[in-house]
């Protein structure tokens, strides 16, 4: 697949924005400034970026508890994101949802989700709707290796293939469901193999390589858009940080050596090396992208910190839609 320089730079920029967003958010959570639990996406940036560059605003995604990266890559407003993490009235969900429910329906981001495995059925519903309404919009369903063991995934995969829905199942196999290693939670090695059981293509992709992700996602999304049905993409990737927060090393469930080995294939580093080799992005230009991302993230944090908390009365708002004049 031919990739223009513009697309390559776009991929890189999205990845750097995710990385920066997540690193700063993790620090703020650990400093006690952001309440609750953050599931950070560091290490997996190539997946969100490589998929999202193919999507329009009218295409939908369903996300997971590890959802910030998806929304950043889809073009989410960093200010509204940070304000949500801080529980402020100016946040994406007016402070009601927080990290695990961050969403932007105008961008087709149908929500991070606190329930593992909740995404696939919602995704096929959006895809059904795309088809029903006669659009050529596509829905991408992100989910983890752990989530691939929930019945919901299997039911949704079957229905997607049966109805030839315009959906792509994007499995982010980062090797763990919480603290349980993949080989201790499923007997298959390649989750992509499960596609055969539902009558759709299943493809294993190097999830650390943004270009490989770009290529595989491009084909699957084009296939869905053309009305040829769903695809299961399995992106082999790795979570550099812990399940929640930053740490990630010196933990009981994995060796530091393993983390370091994966970090050698840091997706941001890989794409930068590649772009430098091709003469598309000088180290100075790459540094400028990082600086710009940091400036945007700092602006978003300042916005969040200066924003008001919701009024206590907001507690009882937004429970029901006003329907025919009645709430």
């Amino acid at each position, binding site marked *: 697949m031919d990739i223009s320089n513009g697309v390559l730079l776009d991929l890189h920029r999205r990845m750097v924005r995710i990385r920066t967003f997540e690193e700063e958010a993790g620090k703020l959570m650990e400093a006690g400034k952001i309440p609750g639990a953050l599931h950070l996406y560091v290490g997996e940036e190539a997946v969100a970026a490589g998929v999202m560059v193919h999507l329009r605003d009218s295409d939908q995604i369903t996300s997971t508890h590890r959802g910030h990266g998806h929304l950043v890559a889809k073009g989410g407003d960093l200010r509204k994101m940070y304000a949500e993490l801080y529980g402020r009235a100016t946040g994406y969900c007016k402070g009601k949802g927080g990290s695990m429910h961050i969403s932007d329906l105008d961008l087709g981001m149908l929500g991070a989700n606190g329930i*593992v495995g909740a995404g696939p059925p919602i995704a096929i519903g959006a895809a059904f709707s795309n088809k029903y309404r006669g659009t050529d919009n596509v829905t991408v369903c992100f989910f983890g290796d752990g989530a691939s063991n929930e019945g919901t995934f299997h039911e949704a995969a079957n229905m997607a293939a049966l109805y030839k829905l315009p959906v792509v199942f994007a499995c982010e196999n980062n090797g763990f469901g919480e603290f349980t290693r993949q080989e201790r939670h499923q007997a298959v090695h390649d989750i992509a193999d499960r596609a055969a059981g539902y009558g759709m293509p299943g493809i294993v992709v190097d999830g650390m390589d943004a270009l490989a992700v770009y290529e595989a996602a491009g084909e699957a999304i084009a296939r869905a858009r053309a009305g040829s049905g769903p695809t299961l993409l399995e992106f082999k990737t790795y979570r550099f940080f812990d399940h929640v927060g930053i740490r990630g090393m010196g933990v009981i469930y994995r060796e530091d050596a393993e983390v370091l080995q994966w970090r050698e294939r840091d997706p941001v580093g890989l794409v930068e090396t590649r772009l430098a080799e091709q003469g598309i992005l000088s180290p100075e230009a790459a540094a400028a992208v990082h600086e710009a991302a940091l400036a945007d993230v700092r602006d978003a944090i300042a916005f969040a910190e200066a924003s008001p908390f919701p009024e206590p009365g907001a*507690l009882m708002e937004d429970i029901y839609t006003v329907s025919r004049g009645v709430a």
Partner: protein
Amino acid sequence: MTTIEAPATREIPYVSAIAEAFGQLMREDPNVFIAGEDVALYGSVFGVTRGLLKEFGPQRVVDTPISESGIMGLGLGAAATGLRPVIDIMFMDFMAVCMDEVVNQIAKIKYMFGGTARIPLTIHTMAGAGTSMAAQHSQSLEAWFCHIPGLKVVMPSGPYEAKGLLVAAVRDDNPVMVVNTKTILGMKAHVPEQIYEIPLGKANVVRPGSNFTILATGRMVSESVKAAEMLVADGLDVEVIDPRTLQPFDTETVVQSVRKTHRALVAHEAVRFGGIGAEFAAQIQEEAFDYLDAPVGRVGAPFTPVPFSPVLEKEYMPNAEKIAAEVRRLLGKQA
């Protein structure tokens, strides 16, 4: 069955009381095993199974895939064929993912099979808001399960109850759901070292009093004791009762109290509408109507999903102040 009162010598946190009970139960009965997400290698995200894998090995302390329906069904099948499983569902909210197993299978099999089945199964979970975990990790859904004939439901209010009720739940030959409250896992109290049971279906008078009864569950028990202290200044001598078991409910102990105090309020952390307090209040007025000087009050969460933002969550959470305020409001309405 013996109930041993806690000697004042040893205080341990709620979380350790659970872990200790699991260990003792597994030592006394080789058919007891625990299955759930991250319960083995990691010792559970709440720490309630820490140390068990090392002592009992992976056959009896089982890390499962993220498959709540599968795990719950596994518990049922194992219980029906002679084992005594404990199924851990990390957050009570995830119970919604395996409702068929709990409601249509586990609860009903004995009855549907004409009494021939025996399901000694414990479902162990964590409820409660107050940790900025938002709407899908904070619910108190115990009323759902109290509504299902065939299930028993207990809700410990502190470390002593956590251990004694868990032991009784596991030794019971019926499906019992143990609903812990995550925000009191650090609470410390006297817990006897030896294994002991708190009988199911028996309420506890936590604080004796003469002219007002507060019936509270889970975390609201300690909040109600605080409220009772606040209300001393109002000339009230509040009796606080912890039902400990919600299903079956010890109507007798509560009614006896209300006959003495003539006024009552029920308090729980769950949403007030349709909460278990509604059933308790109804039973009180059915059994003690002639003794009541005021309507039976209810304190619970407002009718909204649990919000994320700490300011909203604070507004949402029932607590001692809200209980005391409601007691005062009720007294203004007194006949």
